[in-house]
């Protein structure tokens, strides 16, 4: 997906240029009060220019002001169109995957082929290898591997099977092998891919709460400046009369309008919607689909993260880390037997035992023939697995078992042996360190225990430290017993944990945190996570999850990577920060603009008879060439700064995991102080250029 975007970059810019003109429609502009005022101002100056032209006076100044005011509006439109354009390109590629799929509808065990668009909720369809899944649904029969790269960008196929937590399938993805029967769960147009396209295209974009609040501030400022500029005309009339001077040649409507546009927060006003769209876009680039912009904003406010232990904090599986032999047993012997018991054990734990034995004692894995040995798989009821060696007549002469300590103890005792007490103590030690003890027995003799260990992901501890700096608490959720959980929690550096977690206890924890004023985010995939996902302020569902879970959460992670939650929080924060930074920048800019325009308008006011300048000329600290060049420079700067800041608006301001204090200090320095200083330099440079080009006097 990323690749398509890059190749289409020029296309996107061209389309955005076209769109920025199409957006020059009062109805469209009205949605953004700041830009609407600019729009009206542009129209007014244009009317003045033509009126004077009609009267036989060609005013280059008025023409230039009109053009640059129109540019201001166009630049803002361009920013929005560009942000939308990037999403549209993605939407296009998604739409391709949706075109004209035929569905094999199953009615009373009979297949009929109908267009996918006609499928309704609860219809049942069949999909076999190479079929495109026609709509969102749930596998009710069979198992299949599915290529979901169309939506996730991930080329490795995933398994989808009936029952359990991996039953949801997405319309537009492709079955690679086997056959499944699917019950459709979405009506036409309501499919995941449809919603995703709508979201990316921004068609259904609703302004988020914070965006609305900020718009109110910006509109309020606009009204204040409107009043300040409108009444300035009256004060100027008074002053002109009092000084016996005629100011009508400089205090004109186009000049007042220019002052107004320079003062109202056009920079942030023009970029505001682009910032919001780009925020969503950044999520999509990380393969996360937010169901609403509201959720993205909420992500920035999160201060408690509920994280699943497995897959997020620890690697998915436990690994053998040590062999602890019983008294009188050699460690090598234990390793040998443990390896034997695991040869046919394809679970990651089993494989890790084989590997450890090989690493420690150079024990090569032997191959067992089925005619001399039978593999006993792990079962929930016996809590053991192992291998039986037998004669040709199937008479078992040797049984090797490994499993939970309690289970092996029972088994050995049933065979007339006993479990050494010192080994029980060792087992407890392993448990309390956060590991899992796995006892190994050979017939009725216990040889020792294997220490299975949860491996905490590399770098995760540092990640949690960063989160803590940002004021975010992490809570680990695990099904382990409290002792094991505590040990892993300490190793990973999480702030808290829920051991032996159940859906209820998760839900309970979320409600409790929320009652305490916290905002909680969590990830989940199973149906039993659905209530908690719905309750959490930000619920991120794994794309591999069930349909119910996907409905409950407000974001879907297409890559099903639980660590993504941390990135989501950062994107939310970045979105809010970008808004704040550009607002500060925009308002700080106004100071310089006053220093450009006020002396331009009133530099001659109250000038004595033999004076070339009035007292207010000293406000011209930038030493701008002339009143007209000063005003034009301010207007041009005001327009150009929007274009200059578009990349920043789309990319977002630089974000580091730091405390609020450090973040604020840095952003204030860059955007507050920078906003104060930048226009002084910019306006001066433009003024020099204008004079050099002899554009105005």
């Amino acid at each position, binding site marked *: 997906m990323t690749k398509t975007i890059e190749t289409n970059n020029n296309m996107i810019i061209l389309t955005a240029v076209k769109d920025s003109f199409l957006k020059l429609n009062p109805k469209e502009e009205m949605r953004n009060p700041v830009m609407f005022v600019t729009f009206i101002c542009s129209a007014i100056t244009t009317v003045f220019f033509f009126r004077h032209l009609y009267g036989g006076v060609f005013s280059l100044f008025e023409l230039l002001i009109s053009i640059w005011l129109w540019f201001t509006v166009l630049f803002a439109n361009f920013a929005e169109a560009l942000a939308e354009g990037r999403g549209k390109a993605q939407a296009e590629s998604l739409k391709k995957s949706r075109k004209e799929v035929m569905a094999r509808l199953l009615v009373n065990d009979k297949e009929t082929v109908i267009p996918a668009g006609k499928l309704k909720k609860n219809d049942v369809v069949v999909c076999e290898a190479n079929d495109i899944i026609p709509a969102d649904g749930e596998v009710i029969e069979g198992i299949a591997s599915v290529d979901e790269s169309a939506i996730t960008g991930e080329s490795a196929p995933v398994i989808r099977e009936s029952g359990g937590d991996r039953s949801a399938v997405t319309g537009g993805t492709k079955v690679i092998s086997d056959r499944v029967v699917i019950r459709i769960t979405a009506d036409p147009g309501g499919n995941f891919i449809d919603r995703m396209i709508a979201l990316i295209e921004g068609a259904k974009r609703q302004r988020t709460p914070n965006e609305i*609040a900020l718009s109110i*501030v910006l509109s309020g400022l606009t009204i204040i400046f409107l009043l300040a500029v409108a009444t*300035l005309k009256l004060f100027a009339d008074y002053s002109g009369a009092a000084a016996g001077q005629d100011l009508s040649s400089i205090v004109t409507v186009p000049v007042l309008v220019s002052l107004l546009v320079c003062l109202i927060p056009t920079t942030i006003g023009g970029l505001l919607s682009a910032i919001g769209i780009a925020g969503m876009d950044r999520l999509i680039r990380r393969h996360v689909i937010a169901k609403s912009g509201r959720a993205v904003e909420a992500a920035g406010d999160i201060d408690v993260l509920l994280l699943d232990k497995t897959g997020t904090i620890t690697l998915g599986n436990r690994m053998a880390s040590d062999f602890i032999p019983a008294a009188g047993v050699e460690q090598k012997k234990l390793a040998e037997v443990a390896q034997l018991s695991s040869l046919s054990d394809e679970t990651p734990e089993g494989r890790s035992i084989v590997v450890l034995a090989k690493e420690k004692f150079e024990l090569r894995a032997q191959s067992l023939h089925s005619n001399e040995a039978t593999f006993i798989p792990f079962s929930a009821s016996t809590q053991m697995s192992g291998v039986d060696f037998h004669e040709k007549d199937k008479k078992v002469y040797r049984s090797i078992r490994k499993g939970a300590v309690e289970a092996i103890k029972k088994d050995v005792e049933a065979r007339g042996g006993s479990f050494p007490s010192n080994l029980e103590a060792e087992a407890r030690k392993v448990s309390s360190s956060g590991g899992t003890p796995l006892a190994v027995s050979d017939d009725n003799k216990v040889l020792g225990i294997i220490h299975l260990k949860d491996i905490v992901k590399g770098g995760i501890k540092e990640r949690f430290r960063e989160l803590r700096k940002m004021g975010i608490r992490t809570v680990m959720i695990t099904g382990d017993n409290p002792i094991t959980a505590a040990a892993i929690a300490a190793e990973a550096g999480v702030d808290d944990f829920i051991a032996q977690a159940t859906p209820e206890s998760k839900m309970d924890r979320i409600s409790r945190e929320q009652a305490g004023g916290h*905002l909680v985010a969590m990830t989940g995939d199973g149906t039993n996570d659905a209530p908690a996902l719905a309750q959490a302020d930000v619920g991120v569902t794994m794309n591999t999850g069930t349909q119910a879970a996907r409905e409950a959460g407000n974001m879907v992670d297409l890559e099903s990577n639980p660590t993504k939650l941390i990135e989501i929080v950062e994107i939310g924060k970045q979105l809010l920060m970008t808004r704040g930074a550009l607002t500060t920048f925009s308002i700080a800019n106004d100071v310089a603009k006053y220093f450009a325009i006020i002396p331009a308008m009133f530099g001659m006011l109250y000038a004595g008879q033999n004076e070339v300048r009035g007292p207010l000329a000293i406000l011209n600290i930038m030493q701008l060439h002339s009143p007209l060049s000063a005003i034009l420079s301010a207007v041009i700067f005001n327009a150009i700064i929007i274009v200059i800041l578009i990349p920043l608006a789309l990319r977002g301001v630089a974000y580091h995991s730091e405390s609020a204090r450090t973040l604020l200090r840095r952003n204030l320095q860059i955007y507050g102080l920078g906003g104060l200083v930048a226009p002084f330099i910019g306006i001066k440079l433009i003024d020099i250029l204008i004079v050099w080009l002899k554009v105005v006097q």
Partner: protein
Amino acid sequence: MRVNDYLQVIIFCLVLIGLTPPLGLYMARVFEGKKTVMSPVMGWLENLLYRLCGINQNEEMDWKIYTKALLYFNLLGFLFLFVLQLAQKILPLNPANLPNVAWDSAFNTAASFMTNTNWQSYAGETTMSYLTQMIGLTVQNFLSAATGITVFLALTRGLISKSKSSLGNFWVDMVRSLIYVLLPLSILLAVILNSQGVVQTLSSYKDATTLQGANQTIPLGPAASQIAIKQLGTNGGGFFNANSAHPFENPTPLANFLEVLAILLIPAALVYSYGVMIGNRKHGWLLFFVMFAIFALGLGLALWSEYSISSATIHEGQEVRLGITNSVLWMTATTCASNGSVNAMYSSLTPLAGGVAMFNIMLGEVVFGGVGSGLYGMLHIVLLTVFLAGLMVGRTPEYLGKKIERKEVQMVILSILLPSAAILIGAGIACVLPVALSSLSSKGPHGLSEILYAFTSASQNNGSAFAGLNANTVFYNVVLGLCMIIGRFGVIIPAMVIAGSLAVKRITPVGSGTFATDNFLFAALLVGVLIIVGVLTFFPALSLGPLVEHLLMLKGRGF
């Protein structure tokens, strides 16, 4: 400036800062309904008032009920004062036999005293009877100040309440502010002022023969009791036309010191009370020092301007009895604090000092500000600062754990917009309307300053006058009266809506991701936002008034 001048300023500041914690703590206890030293003295009165007025002390009000009670109460006060002025001729206690007040002046005065503005387009001694001064103006001096406190209390409760809608009880807050805070302090101050020579009598004006043999009428009246609350309640409406420049209002240096101290005393202490009530004294002190810094800055600038420029014309009209330092100190305090009383005529200040006075008021009377009103005004600016800067830390902005969202922001903007609009539109129209211009005594930039000052003073409920402008015309009486009402309730109602909206929100606990409001960075930001909002709104107008006048004066051209 001489050493003596520096000492006076320093002593003033030290006494003010020293009195802030004890009075602030006392008031916080009063407002929280706790026992205080005054409970045994005034408790009976409190209970008697509740019984007399049928007030149920335990009734909890949400923002709508609270606001309704407040508005009706103010309306009643307004109507009473309006009618009283229109009928004073036939009412008792009118020894000077003054006629009824003209309707426009009566409207202006009623609006002015209800809104704690205390702008006076009339001259007290030739317009108002003793009865009007006592049961009309003095009573409103108390009630308008107490109204400010109630709004502040409602807003504070909204900020600390944990997800419930109650903001307390308007009547209880009103009664407690009056009888535990305003009344005792006023009695104390009145007695001391009386001892210094401020008149307090019901006997009629005296006729005297001057040394030249001319006849002179010397106005008297119950002045001390009104002046005490005039200063303490940040009212400022003088008993006599010359206000505290009149020797019967402000006879001695000690009286002057106490009167100027009384201007800032309660507003300053309330900031401390706020810190106590929200359980964050550090934040309270921070707000205090932000206010103090702006106060000190303005004071320094004005003193510098007055003392550094020595030109004969500029000393025209300066107050010589109390001296320049005391005039400027008073000016800075009274314009910061929405008081509006004067002990010198500001029209005679240097342009820059006059500009400081005007800018102090334009900031929205939040530098200490009016009793209660200064603090709730400042809290609006705090919310705006939190909103703008809070975004920059990447979280939905929050203040004291409460999220600042659409509703709050809307109301904050409204409360800034309405008074600004009243100032700009009013002054703009007055600048081009012949009927308004005919009231001017000076032309040129000084005339613009006079008009701008009048509308600023009215719309921000300060009430001080620049003098020079004859405001007792139908135009100014009506328009300025409306400005006062917009400026007062255009801030109170938004404050109440915010209180109601915040009250029901849950409190987010503080963490390291929280935008801190109790460190130096926030203080600097707050000052920045306050000044930038003020400057951006009024810079064009100020540049054509005081600024250009100052620059012209430097060139030796006065107006």
